[in-house]
């Protein structure tokens, strides 16, 4: 099974890369963009286990290492 962790800067924390991409998209003629946030996706291959167990485990990984919760939020998706 696979866990997908998306890590991104918290709302309210300025995202300089997102801001730059937003600006670049507009200068390329793409309009109607409200906001751009850039994050990273971490894909973890796991041994088979229950979905609950996987979520608990990956949550711990995220809190410990994958995200810096001072500035970042994350969400977890489990794919069979």
């Amino acid at each position, binding site marked *: 099974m696979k866990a997908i962790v998306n890590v991104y800067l918290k709302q309210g924390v300025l995202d300089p890369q997102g801001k*730059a991409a937003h600006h670049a998209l507009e200068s390329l003629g793409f309009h109607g963009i409200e906001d751009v946030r850039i994050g990273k996706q971490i894909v973890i291959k796991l041994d088979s286990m229950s979905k609950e167990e996987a979520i608990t485990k990956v949550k711990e990984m995220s809190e410990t290492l994958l995200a810096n919760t001072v500035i970042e939020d994350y969400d977890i998706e489990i794919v069979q």
Partner: protein
Amino acid sequence: MSAIENIESVLKSHKLSPAEYEHIKEILHREPNIVEIGIFSAMWSEHCSYKSSKKYLNGFPTKAPWVIQGPGENAGVIDVGDGVAAVFKMESHNHPSYIEPFQGAATGVGGILRDVFTMGARPVANLNSLRFGSIKGSDNINKYQRHLVRGVVEGIGSYGNCMGVPTVGGEVSFDDSYNGNILVNAFALGLVKHEDIFLGVAKGIGNPVIYVGSKTGRDGLGGAVMSSDSFTEESKSLRPTVQVGDPFTEKLLLEACLELFATDHVVGIQDMGAAGLTSSSFEMAGKTGAGMIMNLDKVPAREEGMSPYDFMLSESQERMLICAKQGSEQAIIDIFEKWGLDAAVIGEVTDTGRMELFWYGEKCADMPIAPVSEEAPILDRPTLRPSYLDAVNAKNISDYPVVTNQEAFEKLLSSLEVVDKAWIYEQYDSMVQTNTIKRPGSLDASVIRIKQNDKAIAMSADCNPRYCYIDPFKGAALAVIESGRNVAMSGARPLAITDCLNFGNPENPEVMWQFAQACEGIKEACATLNTPVVSGNVSLYNETNGVSVFPTPAIAMVGLNDDCNKVLQSSFQKEGNTLLMVGQTKGEFGGSLYIKELFGETTGKIGEIDYTTELRLWDFVINANKKGLLESAKDLGMGGVAIALAKMSAISGLGVEANIKLNNTNEIFDESQSRAVFEVAPEHVNDVVKMASDLGLHIDAIGSIKGDNFTLNDVSMTVKQLQSIYFDTFKKTIEQDL
């Protein structure tokens, strides 16, 4: 070992000619298999064999009492006093950088750093020499060129910064001739004790051959073959063959290698660069006449399903091949494991003179080493004096309309070749290792302290492609001279060069003529100035859709200053000091910035080169500086004395009042050689004038450092305005589409 079907198409895809195939069969006494074809193709590629260029590279002056190692090793080595040696080389990564600028440039830096630390040296300085197409304007070409500049700079920074090696300087210029082929030349210099220098040799029957570093993937398969070809519209599809760099792994490899070198386990070591395991193994055994067995199934692999062919030709980065002493295998593996790197015994040295490759016990290639590395075809390509030269040489400055000096000054000062490049060099850590005395942006040479002996190394990378376009011989000689003059201006004695010869398609006789002429120019200059060539690299096929780049023989000069506390700066130090100009202004505008910026052309002739005066100028500045008579010094080059003084003024924020007597008013922009300006304290003026006159140099007091205005003859500007043009223009240009 089975013979190959469809041999024609296999030869074509490996860029081997039918004649070369016949030669291969003679060498092997049979038909080659696919692994062997791949090996021949890599070893005989332009990139590895120098087949077009070898004829002209022979005869480069390579010896001097201070030269410890000339060309032929991973890098050249010179003595810098007290048992310390400087190891340095410059190398191109042009083709990969055009296709993927960030990774191309990054792996270029990674490669040159490996060349240096493979020799046992800790890298202490990087330089780079970059050429791009036109980055002004809003055409797609201009936009793409800006994208390339941003990517290349970021790539260089990411690798050098992570390695902890300061990028202390460099040069960059822009011309339409690079629109289809940018040039990315990276230079690295390291320091090592004489007795700790390692060479890329394999010897001692039974000694183990050990692979260390990153695992091997399919990166850059056929990279050496790619850079031996011109670009076409299809080139962008080559993207998968661009290697991805991992500076963190290379940093670990550096530390592990230096730790290993402090032991007594290593016989020889070679970096796996272009053509990876193939060229490293053949070169190591080829140098000693030994043979080698390698078990390719033992090579650490990153991907599944890789074949012997893939292992031999992969250009995965951050790998080394070591020939070790018998019995030291485990000790070596332990060191690399400590640093989290792979290390595997993959073979041993034999006395057969043959390279025998095995795949799970089965022989998959068996070739005599010497003929593969030595019998690469040396070509005598036809040369032809280019047809453009007559028309270009026939024009001179009087053929152009008169422009006021003020207008010309404003145009030249805002030229991208002139303005400050902080946008670039501030992305490079230039101060790590705490030795950087003369930083990027300080003009002329870059200087670092040698902590081991309190001397200083000065270095400068230079080439004026416009000079080389109108006269490849003199242009190349002037690249040597200018780099030497820059080094001398910091108070250091120029000692030796490394070169990176970037040219177009060698199959074009006019390009081959340019190449041949440039080589002769370098030979003349290096011999006369006693600055031998200790390492270098040739990059051909810098051509797109039939358009070749300007001939660009980039030269990096390295020199030594006996006292790190006596490094001369290149910008004004103090108001009230006198400005002296040494050398004669002869009205030379051939290939000048003046003609290019004002009239958009590269025309004219190069005047006679006066080596005697040049050497006297070097002696003068070195000796006057030793006596403490000089406050700052700057060579006069592109844009002439007007631009030199303007740069010094902008950087220091100090004004100038200067008046120079000239035959023609526009000669404040003339580019006559062997000239420099010196800042001298009033009490030393007489001594300095006497010293220069005694050496037979022409010297004039031209003004002083004074006030808030820049005033030179009929040109005038506030220092504030000067600074705003000098410091703001590049950023505005490069960031215009962000």
